[in-house]
């Protein structure tokens, strides 16, 4: 290609006008339903051995229907490799579920092992997933290392391990009635503070994790930077917590009101409360309010999820590319409501339709603003040796965790 040597400064924006590319999703619920159904039945029949293939088909379907600038993504993971990672994780989970028949501490051990390994597993899963995702023939990469993953999740890990150690210590002592109560009440005070501390630190733990992810994405020579601070996450968390608290108060008031009215009208008497029928009605009402609260918290989660998604991606930058997420919390909340109601009504058959609808909402809310076209921005792939090795190691284990 002939090179034009400029002797005068050229206005870059003339040749490279800023552009905006919105992501598109062309998948449909009906299509995915068929894939999902076959996946489900084959997985069940093979007692779970088919799951890596099911994952691969699902990812291929979703990626190849996700379009950016007229080209779609693709997934290249080899299910045989994914089977290895799947067996590793499945055995750990199996130990957690059934180990108690061999030794009472087995579940705790399995859980602690899983937790200790989780940063490593996370790093490998991210490497595997991204290295097997491509766009226009170019592969993505995840540049984070396992060491960085441990640094990012170290604090959270410490919190959970201490928590489990405290709980496990109660199990270790095979006590008679009294010492048990003593041991718990001794622990209770500082355990309570520890849990409160963990609760307050959760947005910070989350920020550490997301920073690890968002500053290590790469496509060819393009790498991402993450400029978010933890404080807006606290803002979102606080608002969500406030909503949850508010709804609990409202529900309690409603419950109290119902009870008062029932009592005032003579429907509820002390004898009735003691009878088995009365007791079961009480329990049922309690369950009903609890379910309503679960439902409301699902909606609060959607709200927090949408705000967080927007916040994280609008603070992720690549050279000459900015991400412009515009996920409307209201839309996501309404969609979540509709999805969950329909899933309930159809006994789960609506699930694939719900998954497609949610994915579409999230993906199509994203656009990229670029200075210039996407054809010329992404340049030569720069391969560092340790990245290649990291990807290869991830390939060997084939760990892929659903995000």
């Amino acid at each position, binding site marked *: *290609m002939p090179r034009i040597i400029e002797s005068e400064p050229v206005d870059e924006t003339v040749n490279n006008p800023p552009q905006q590319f919105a992501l598109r999703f*062309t*998948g*449909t619920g009906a*299509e995915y339903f*068929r*894939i999902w*159904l*076959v996946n*489900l*039945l*084959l*997985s*069940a*029949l093979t*007692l*779970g051995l088919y*799951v890596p293939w099911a994952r691969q*088909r699902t990812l*291929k*379907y979703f990626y*190849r*229907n996700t*379009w950016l600038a007229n*080209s*779609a993504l*693709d997934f290249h993971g080899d299910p045989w490799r994914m089977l290895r990672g799947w067996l590793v994780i499945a055995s750990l989970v199996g130990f957690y*579920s*059934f180990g*108690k*028949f*061999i*030794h*009472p501490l087995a579940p705790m051990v399995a859980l602690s092992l899983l937790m200790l390994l989780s940063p490593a597993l996370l790093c490998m899963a991210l490497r595997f997933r991204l290295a097997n995702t*491509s*766009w*226009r*023939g*170019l592969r993505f990469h995840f540049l984070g290392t396992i060491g960085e993953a441990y640094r990012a999740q170290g604090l959270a890990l410490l919190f959970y391990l201490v928590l489990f150690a405290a709980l496990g210590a109660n199990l270790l002592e*095979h006590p008679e009635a009294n010492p048990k109560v003593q041991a718990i009440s001794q622990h209770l005070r500082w355990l309570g503070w520890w849990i409160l501390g963990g609760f307050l630190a959760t947005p910070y733990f989350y920020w550490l994790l997301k920073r690890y992810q968002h500053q290590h994405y790469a496509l*060819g020579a393009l790498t991402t930077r993450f400029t978010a601070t933890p404080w807006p996450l606290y803002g979102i968390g606080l608002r969500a917590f406030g909503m949850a608290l508010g709804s609990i108060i409202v529900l309690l008031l409603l419950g109290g009101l119902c009870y008062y009215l029932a009592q005032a009208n003579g429907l509820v008497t002390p004898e009735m409360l003691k009878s*088995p029928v009365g007791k079961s009605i009480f329990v049922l009402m309690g369950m009903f309010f609890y379910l309503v609260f679960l439902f409301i918290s699902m909606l609060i989660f959607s709200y927090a999820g949408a705000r967080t998604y927007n916040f994280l991606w609008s603070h992720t930058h690549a050279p000459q590319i900015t991400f412009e997420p515009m996920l409307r919390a209201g839309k996501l909340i309404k969609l979540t409501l509709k999805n969950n109601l329909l899933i309930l009504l159809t006994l*789960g058959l609506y*699930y694939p339709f719900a998954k497609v609808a949610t994915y579409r909402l999230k993906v199509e809310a994203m656009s990229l603003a670029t200075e210039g076209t*996407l*054809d*010329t*921005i*992404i*340049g*030569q*792939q720069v391969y560092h040796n340790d990245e290649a090795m990291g990807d290869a190691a991830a390939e060997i284990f084939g760990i892929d965790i659903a995000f």
Partner: protein
Amino acid sequence: MYQDDMETSAWYFDGQTSQAHAVSLSIDGQKLHIRSNSCKSTYAEDIDVAVALSEVSWAERVEHGMRMAYLANGGMLQAQDNAAWDQWTARYYLGQHWVAKAQLRWDAALSSAAVLIVLLALFYVYGLPWFAEVIAPKVPVQLVAKIGSTLLTSLEGDYLQPSKLGVEQQKKIRDTFAKAVRQALGAAAPDYDLRFYASKLGPNALALPGGTIILTDELVSLPPSGVATQQLIGVLGHELGHLQHHDGMRTLIQFAALTVVIDILMGDASSTLTLLPTWLAQARYSRAIEHQADQASAALLRANGISPTVMAGFFEQLACYHAAKNAHDREPSFLNIAFSSHPADTERIAFFKKAASRLSEP
């Protein structure tokens, strides 16, 4: 360049940059020809390559997704028009996979789903029980014993207290039962360890993996005047039957497999939701297992010249006990019947009566 049946337009990406090159594809023998389509290309450079068809990987068709093919050199081809691409690839039978085809067509998907559902049902009714029956005896004895001792330890913590029965009475029951087992099974009898406990569980008998049989004081001294020795032999024979059939491991294997399958089927549903179907599914297996143990009990009784009808009297006595207890506690037990894994007592009484009539058969 014009496009005819033998050619289709595509975008070529070299795998090094995101730059798109307009090309035409044609197939000649075993080779795929990729040539620049100069009127659409944004670069002046011409591409004219021939690639062996065996080195091209044609991606499966996804209805609205991108149509594409991957080249061995790292490059890829993307369709310019999906319909034209589909027509062109169909001509040469490229990129077809049976699972993809099943997914694409509704009738294929539904009929394969139907087949799979039938297979799942067969697995539940026949496959898994058969598998558990075959595998259970093969589990290493040490592992089975370990599981049994762990269970016993956890039971002893909360539910089992030292027995209040007299040593003489315990010895009498032990010896009578040992004699009956020798008479019926001889050398083929499984090893067992009979233990007595007082228990919150009420009148009950349990067989744990590894050979421990537990008999509760409350059963031995069932009101109004205890349980006859012949009936105790029937009860212990039932528990011995569990040991003979390796029921502990069978149940564990079936339960594990059921849990896995139901968890997969229910996907993201919460773990509490999966408990109910698992419980119900397991209940059906349990009824079958309990019935087999009843058969072992009847066989043991017959071999010792005892009529299996004695068990009918035992169940009636047990039913009276439970009725009296419920009246006292004033708690309706209808829920228990629904989820009970023991065949309803009337069924068991009927079985033992029938088993007795076989005594008189030649």
